[in-house]
């Protein structure tokens, strides 16, 4: 949305198509709006109900996390990133911890890696569950069928949070990843609980699909809406389900394996349409694949220690360290990257710079390109299909 681009509107919604006899309306969509999934503002310029131009504004939830990471020691940084992607908090920890481990060249025990895989996939299930609910909410409203789906999926998400509570004692701020491994080992009998929850979710999924993604109204609302083509997706650096829905077969879990993904087989779901329906289909397929992956992970979970052996002495160990590291992992929203430059930050005990690449930010950057030409109703659906988490966008 600046001078370098000819303007996303130019080819999507030409002024010539507009009726000459109507005024344009400037409508603020957000920040305090029921369906912006947080505090996000889009300024819409409307011709009747059709969007002529959309200008997104982010930053209403800016908390200075990246700057904070330069002030806190490495280990202190782990719990505060939980709040970035507040729907899948554990993935933030994983990305940060993995970047530190790469910087320090620390080997993570095999059991810890498998556990991290299980955690990551459970987080994906929880996150996609929440997305399905909120997406239905966007289309059915708080006073309609959408809220039914919303409450059901929130219930399932809660079961998964229960599982995490059993392991870490927390439902949101886990702080369970440490540099070099995990802090909490899974309690005995946990795998049975997981299987129970997964069975439940799997048995109920068809019902939710009947209420949402297989519903005729759902299809009517999403098909052909908010199409992101391959070029646009690649050009904007979109990742995750959005990229895969645009026909690019790319998944970090398979193409640059981390955790235990090299030992597990990830079935990457793709679609070619690039519209909201395709994104929904990809996410639902991922949901099913994640359930399978968790089961597989639990079955093959190796014995052994969960930490790097000797504890890492903080913070002296980092003082003399130099270098930089980037780690990208595939979160429910796409590639969550963490780039760390060592040395120098806060008298040497903190990273010099820590940059977090948030997938949601990139997803939202597609809005000016895809919104023009759609109606106000579609804005809500498109926004929901991108599944943005404002904590991550604003950091």
């Amino acid at each position, binding site marked *: *949305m*600046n001078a370098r681009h000819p303007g996303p509107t130019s080819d999507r919604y030409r*002024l*010539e*198509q*507009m*009726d*000459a*006899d109507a*005024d*344009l309306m*400037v409508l603020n969509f957000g920040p305090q709006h029921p369906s912006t999934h947080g505090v996000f503002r889009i*300024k819409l*310029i409307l011709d009747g109900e059709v969007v*002529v*131009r959309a*200008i997104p*504004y982010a*930053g209403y939830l800016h908390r200075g996390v990246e700057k904070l990471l330069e002030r806190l020691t490495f280990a202190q940084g782990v719990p505060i990133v939980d709040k970035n992607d507040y729907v899948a908090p554990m993935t933030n920890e994983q990305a940060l911890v993995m970047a530190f481990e790469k910087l320090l060249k620390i080997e993570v025990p095999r059991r810890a890696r498998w556990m991290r895989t299980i955690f990551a996939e459970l987080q994906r299930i929880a996150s996609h569950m929440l997305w399905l609910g909120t997406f239905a909410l966007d289309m059915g409203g708080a006073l309609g069928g959408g809220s039914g789906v919303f409450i059901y999926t929130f219930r399932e998400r809660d079961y998964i949070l229960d599982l995490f509570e059993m392991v870490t004692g927390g439902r949101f701020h886990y702080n369970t990843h440490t540099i070099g491994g995990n802090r909490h080992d899974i309690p005995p009998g946990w795998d049975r609980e997981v299987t129970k929850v997964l069975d439940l979710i799997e048995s109920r999924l068809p019902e939710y699909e009947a209420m949402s993604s297989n519903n005729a109204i759902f299809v009517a609302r999403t098909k052909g809406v908010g199409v992101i083509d391959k070029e646009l997706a690649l050009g904007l650096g979109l990742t995750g389900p959005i990229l895969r829905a645009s026909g690019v077969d790319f998944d970090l879990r398979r193409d640059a394996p981390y955790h235990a993904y090299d030992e597990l087989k990830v079935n990457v779901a793709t679609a070619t349409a690039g519209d909201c329906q395709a994104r929904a289909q990809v996410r639902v397929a991922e949901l099913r694949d994640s359930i399978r992956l968790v089961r597989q992970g639990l079955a093959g979970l190796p014995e052994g220690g969960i930490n790097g052996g000797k504890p890492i002495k903080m913070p002296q160990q980092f003082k003399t360290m130099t270098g930089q590291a980037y780690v990208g992992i595939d979160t429910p929203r796409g590639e969550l990257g963490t780039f760390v430059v060592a040395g120098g930050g806060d008298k040497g005990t903190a990273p010099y710079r820590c940059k977090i690449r948030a997938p949601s930010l990139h997803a939202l950057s597609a809005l000016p390109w895809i919104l023009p030409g759609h109606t106000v109703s579609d804005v809500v659906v498109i926004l929901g299909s991108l599944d943005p988490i404002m904590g991550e966008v604003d950091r």
Partner: protein
Amino acid sequence: MNLEMLMQDPALWGLGIATLAFAMLAVSVKNLVHAVLWLGMSLLGTAALFAKFDASFLAAIQVLLYVGGVVVLLIFGVMLTREHDNLAAFRTTRRPVRAALVAIALFVGLVHAILNTPGLGDPSAGKLVSMPDLGMSLLGPYAFAFEVLSLLLLAAMVGAVVLARKRDPGQPSAKKLIRHRNLGRQVVEGLAATDEVGQ
């Protein structure tokens, strides 16, 4: 029921005065939206008059078509203008004498027509015309007029379509081009004036 009896009916006076008062309000208020709504009230008064004279069907159709339909049409008409609530031009006319002449001529014509209505003041004219009679005569003696009416409605529909149709994008008229340039400027100004947060 003759004219003298009618003249002594307080309900008739009340309804008539109310209808006229609403009509006066409709043409005298500045606010275009209010004007439309007062007109709606006036039309409701007319419907009440119909009901008073036992013309049930006419009264109901008056509400259904005029208040529920034409007023809505006028509301959307108002929304096609740029200033809904302050239309100074609405009150002034450049040719007051000519306007007055037209109004007087219309009034005289209407009064003349009413006074010359056959059966006015004739007690037998008060006989009820039932709805089935209405249907019978519509499809009997007035069948031809009825069919012509369908053509009229068709013409109106075609007119609506022409109104709605997008002009050929390949051949924009000069007026439209000017409008679009203004629209483009609106877009740009809309951005420039309100980008207080940043880019």
